């Protein structure tokens, strides 16, 4: 990398970071400074006032939104994990007649946008009494976030030698034991990819939560945040920026910690596919 490119990239990075900096900065400004003109690029009196307001307004409903979203993330990660570990092992090590048809069917989910299935899904959730529940919403997340994970898990198990299963089988281990005791410990990078992929997709979802939940007790953080931001006559930008900052912290932490696995998973998905 030449010095010139380096400096150009550095300037570009500054532009990239300024949006995040501006939001974080505004969230720590005292209310009277938020709407001052010209805007200050630093603040002399950082305060937690906006956050205090964010977390105490309407019986701390914002914390409830965040809690709901953590539950949703946990549920959908768990369901996707079970489906793609069992399914991936079956497709790679125990192939049976017709299993490829099922695999193609699952992959076709990636081509069909769930945005076109909102009407029948709403009707289905209504019939199953799953509307406006965290569990119901997580089932939809799991279905539509699973194909990529199953695909990756299958690839990962396929890359492990067949002798692994055979020798364990001779030792008299059951199929379930071979999967969880022998194969899964070797597939931890793929597990990490699933965690970061499903976490980000669930935490950041807006449209599914908007449509399949209606009461504030089960709303996720994105829809809750939007309600918060639009519920007043004049937009309270200090509060909005505090909400934005708070809502991006979990995704940024998970992303930075597990970034390596996310990139690995995307990479194997895009080159092997």
């Amino acid at each position, binding site marked *: *990398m030449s010095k010139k490119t380096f400096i150009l*990239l550095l300037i*570009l*990075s500054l532009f*990239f970071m300024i*949006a995040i900096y*501006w*939001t974080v900065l*505004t969230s720590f400004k005292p209310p009277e400074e*938020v*709407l001052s*003109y*010209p*805007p200050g690029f630093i603040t002399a009196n950082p305060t937690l006032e906006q956050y205090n307001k964010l977390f105490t307004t309407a019986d701390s409903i914002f914390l409830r939104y965040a809690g709901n979203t953590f539950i949703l993330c946990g549920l959908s990660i768990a369901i996707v994990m079970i*489906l793609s570990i*069992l*399914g991936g092992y*079956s497709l790679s090590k*125990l*192939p*049976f007649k017709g*299993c490829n048809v*099922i695999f193609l*069917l699952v992959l076709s*989910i990636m*081509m*069909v*946008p769930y*945005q*076109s299935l909102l*009407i*029948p*899904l*709403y*009707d*289905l959730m209504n019939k199953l009494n799953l509307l406006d529940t965290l569990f119901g919403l997580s089932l939809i997340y*799991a279905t*539509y976030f*699973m194909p990529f994970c*199953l695909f990756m898990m299958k690839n990962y198990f396929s890359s492990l030698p067949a002798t692994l299963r055979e020798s364990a089988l001779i030792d008299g281990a059951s199929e379930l034991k071979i999967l969880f005791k022998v194969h899964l410990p070797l597939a931890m990078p793929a597990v990490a990819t699933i965690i970061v992929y499903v976490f980000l997709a669930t935490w*950041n979802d*807006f*449209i599914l939560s908007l*449509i399949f939940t209606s009461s504030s007790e089960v709303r996720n953080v*994105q829809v809750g*945040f*939007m309600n918060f931001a639009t519920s007043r006559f004049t937009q309270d*930008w200090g509060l*909005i920026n505090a909400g*934005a900052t708070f809502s*991006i912290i979990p*995704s*940024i932490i998970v*992303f930075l910690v597990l*970034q390596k696995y996310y990139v690995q998973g*995307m*990479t194997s998905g*895009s*080159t092997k*596919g």
Partner: protein
Amino acid sequence: MTLRQKKNFSGLLFLLPVMIMVGIFFIYPLIRVLITSFQEWNVMGGSKFIGFENYTAALTDDEFWLTLGNTIIYALIVTPMIFVPALLLAVVLKKTSRSSKFFRTIFFLPFAISFVASSYMWKWIYNDTYGILNYMLTSLHLISQPINWLGETWLSRIMVSIMVSWKTLGFSMIIILAGLQGIPNEVYEAASIDGAKKSQTLRFITLPLLRPTLILALILSVAGSFKAFDHFFIMTKGGPLKTTETIVMYINKVAFEYYNIGLGSAISVLFLIILLIVSFFQLKAGGFSNE
């Protein structure tokens, strides 16, 4: 049971949860949306088949064409804005070093942020009275009056696209990077022995070998822009005068505000078909069918 039967049985058993989930939450809704698109649906219960009436209604509906047009225009604007910088950055950051790793993280980071949070962050930057963008441009004397960035049709399309480019180009960059790193070094060595210039190497070696990856990144980004909802819902609310209302916003409105299930289903099916056709042509252009 023989060993082989036992193996088949466990294979089926292990795939069963996937089959159940996909059957209930994907296959069933897919069939249902096709059926209801041919029905007149009564909220009070009861429905009857009415042939292609919903489709005729959709295809003669001005708002359907308007929102479809809006979505296509947006896809045409935002795709190059994501794609060109992503390709350039991927080429520049191809070699793994400490600084290139750092820059990759910086450019990929906004991808972790939700569309909702990004929309509010940029709405604040674009704010006509207190926004930092108007402040900077006026103090540099580039504009004399503050601009209402999200108030005019074309301008708001471009401003929303800038936000989307900021948020998603890192993802395309990572996919393209993976493709670049898959090109063996020997090819470049051979080219340099033959005396190829840098621009020639890019034109005749990198781009052709990278085509499948580029097409994949393109499909993901075009399909993503066709599904646009969150950011227009928040940044422009479809305005001014519905000129930034996207097709998914319209489906949502017809189904969940007007409760016109038949029409909503027909538009959903049309949307699905359009998206499949667009992806199909991109795949063909990438030469996937020949390989």
